[in-house]
């Protein structure tokens, strides 16, 4: 396991390196004149030049990148243009909020999706199977702003069961925070449920049709034991990868939901920074999301290896 981790880490590092190049290129080089972009078209050219000099934007790109990534790795994400304050605390707070929302959605959708997929597979070809597949597919294609608005209208404004903002009052306890996060989490559940259920169903169907499941049935095991002991572990291996790929989305890709529910997550942070030409904030936000994606993929790989002896054996060789 440790060997596998050590073999995968360089890949993760390379992925992040490439991402950092893209982010740097997008944030620092493409705007061309950073000073002009910040100060606006009417600013005095001397002020623009002074700002560029102050920001170091007049130096060679490679030097700029080296300095930027060097500080970044040490946790110094430089100063926000918009707030004239270090970026890191903003990113940290937003990340924490995003993790909370993503976490609520995750804990709702993963068990639901997997269970839905398994139940569909066990009832293959029957009405329940078709219903689950159909619901999953329909829910996935409904955009989150549509389902979000409908939820706000029905449960927030109509029935007044849930608050329409995701941001709890300051100093709220965990239970209250959770209460505020339920409504925004539901559109995410809709979107991700279909993917997970589909993979879980396909994996379970394949495992049920496998020769080893046949062996288990013909041993005289009751169906429950066949499914629990022999089918599920093999069936859910492919699902883990899908869950991991959705984790990145659930934490870092929620611009629409966060905007809709007035929530200070990393998605809305990136969106705001992009609109305000706040490049350091933008870069830090995107890099953070990148790190989340890479880490969740790495965690999925480790989990797969822990469950699948073949991969583990490969790690030892």
């Amino acid at each position, binding site marked *: 396991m440790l060997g596998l981790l050590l073999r995968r880490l360089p890949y993760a590092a390379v992925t992040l390196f490439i991402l950092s190049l893209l982010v740097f290129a997008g944030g620092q080089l493409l705007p061309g004149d950073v000073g002009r972009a910040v100060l606006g078209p009417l600013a005095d050219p001397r002020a623009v030049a002074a700002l560029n000099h102050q920001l170091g934007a007049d130096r060679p790109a490679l030097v700029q990148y080296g300095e930027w990534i060097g500080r970044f790795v040490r946790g110094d994400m430089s100063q926000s243009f918009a707030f004239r304050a270090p970026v890191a605390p903003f990113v940290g707070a937003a990340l924490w909020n995003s993790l909370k929302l993503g976490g609520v959605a995750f804990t709702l959708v993963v068990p639901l999706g997997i269970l839905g997929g398994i139940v569909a597979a066990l009832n293959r070809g029957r009405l329940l199977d078709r219903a689950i597949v159909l619901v999953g597919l329909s829910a996935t294609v409904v955009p989150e702003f549509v389902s979000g608005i409908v939820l706000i209208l029905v449960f927030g404004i109509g029935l007044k069961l849930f608050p329409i903002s995701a941001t709890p009052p300051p100093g709220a306890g965990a239970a209250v925070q959770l209460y505020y996060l339920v409504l925004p989490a539901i559109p995410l559940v809709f979107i991700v449920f279909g993917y997970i259920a589909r993979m879980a169903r396909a994996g379970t169907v394949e495992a049920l049709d*496998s020769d*080893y499941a*046949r*062996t288990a049935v013909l041993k*005289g095991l*009751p169906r429950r034991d066949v499914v629990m002991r022999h089918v599920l572990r093999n069936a859910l291996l492919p699902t883990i990868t899908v869950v991991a790929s959705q984790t990145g989305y659930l934490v870092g890709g929620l611009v629409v939901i966060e905007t809709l529910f007035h929530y200070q997550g990393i998605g809305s942070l990136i969106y705001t920074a992009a609109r305000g030409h706040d490049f350091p904030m933008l870069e830090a936000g995107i890099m953070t999301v990148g790190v989340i994606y890479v880490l969740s993929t790495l965690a999925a790989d480790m989990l797969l290896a822990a469950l699948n002896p*073949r991969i583990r*054996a490969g790690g030892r*060789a």
Partner: protein
Amino acid sequence: MTLLAEADRGSGVSGTALRPDALRISGLDVSYRVRGRSRPVLRGLDIAIPAGGTFGLVGESGCGKSTAAMAAMRYLPRNGRTDAGRILVGGRDVTALPAAALRDLRRHSVSMVYQDPGRALNPTIRIGAQVAEIYGLDGAGPEEARARALAMLGRVRIADPASVMERYPHQLSGGMQQRVVIAMALAVRRELIVLDEPTTGLDATVEAEVLDLVETLRRENGTAVLFIGHNLEVIARMCAEVGVLYAGRLVEQGPTRAVLANPRHPYTVGLLRCLPRRGLDRRRERLDTIPGFLPTAATAPAGCVFAPRCGLARDVCRADPPPLIPLGDGRSSRCHFHAEAPHLPRNAPAQAPAAPADRAADAPLLAVTGLNMTFRQGRQAVQALRDIDLSVRPGETLGLVGESGSGKSTLARILLGLTVPDADSRLALDGEALLPLGRRRDLAAIQMVFQNPDSALNRAHPIGRIIGRALAKLAGLGGAARRERMLALTRGVQLADAYLAAKPRQLSGGLKQRVAIARAFAGRPRLIVCDEPTSALDVSVQAAILNLLADLQAEQGVSYLFISHDLAVVRYVSDRIAVLYLGRLMEIGPADRVFAGPHHPYTEVLLSASPGPDGAVKRVPLSGEIPSAVDPPSGCVFHTRCPRRIGPICDTEEPPLSPRQDGHAIRCHLDSADLGRETAP
């Protein structure tokens, strides 16, 4: 054909008069629903196996034999349906049992050994837990279940069972996996075990051991056996009774010995004639074949199902389906003219095509000297081939035999230029050095026919395009010339022109192999490497392909390097034979000399593992598994498993490949006089 020496083995259990039949299938009809239509697979099947008895069900693919096995286990595919009939296991009707009773039956009365043991075992559960589970179901506590599992693994002769308990299936060889499956099937004393092609895909030596093991345990437990197979030799070895299945119907049935020695149904006669028998030589006599194809549900004839392919068929055969006619002595045949069956006219002419003049004196086409192949595996060097010297003359077939892991495929890959051997190796074709693929000028000269035509042909392309591309690349032909040559090629491999527009999946395995052969012949090759070209095919198709290869050779003077684990096939097609073990050439020489002996102890073991349908050879058991090439044994690499080891010299000193007589060379310390010979049939 001689009598079957071992066919009566299964009948040894006595005192069974009071026990009900282990399996009694009567009037069984099974059908599959395919695209909304019901397709019959078994029709009116009747089988009775007495307690402790052995019954073999043979037939070619698609005849319904696996369906019969699965019906007996009540585990038909989702679209399968038992339309009529009863299946009694130990007197209980499995088609009518409620779920709990069915589970109970599977726990205590009937079990199964499968064709592909690697897939029959759960990849994510340790071996010990998988075997112990059976004892858990039998009522044992966890401790006891593990202890009994350990003991059972010992009984199936797994070395070091305690460590195997902790391993996962993929860490075991195919033979070991099958032993584990057998351990599970025979873990508790049962009335019936169903073996569905249990040794297909295993090496001959492993197959022999697995069959011995089943036989021993079966006798100890008094278990009855339903053996599903396509290999008549194996059935003859394992079963007292045999049933021949054709298109879902039992066409002939009776004591194995009598049926195989004196078949009374034209299909059985045809099947036996397809087998390359000892004493048959491709240069003298072609194999007989069965014309046509297995009927599908849509084309099922009104009368006898075999009539469209039968050389004896008359009007009555095409009009009235014959009943299973009793012939006495427990035999029956579903043929109106069963008495005439032995006189079935040949389908393929017996006359072998005129062979080119004996070219033994010619300069060799392929000359391999001092071939070494070392793979790097991490920090270790693995010698896959060591010091190989061999030659193939023009128009000659060199048979290459050896277990998996002996280096056969590596040698093939080197000849094709896919793998680059060690620097000091010398390979020459027609006196010119044979370069790796990238630098080879004449790509067409050496071609290959693979074991599995399914994966060797591009599924997305029609046949005409596959062959056309080979003609463009290997023969440099285009336009009308290419079209003309393509038609000549496909006709040469007896493939109807209509198939040129078809995709590979629309063709049967035999037809696909014909396409692969046509492709290999596109550029007028000098040498064709045939890697188990018929092992995935039914015997009747195999016979046609072997005839085709022989015809093409006689016509074009091409040479073959023929790799196979089926010694009967190798014997039939080869002029000379090379025996590989752990990357060393143990023996090479004229085919009849290698078979007749004196031969290498390893050859002796291989020969005894597949006695042929005559079953006359005494078994020489081979102990253990082939050692790892990473750490080969010192001295003679075969000494760890050799039945004729003479002493310390074998452990310390590697014998040279010493010439004996008539171009026959053997790598053994023993003198020719002390080496084994083939016993007279």
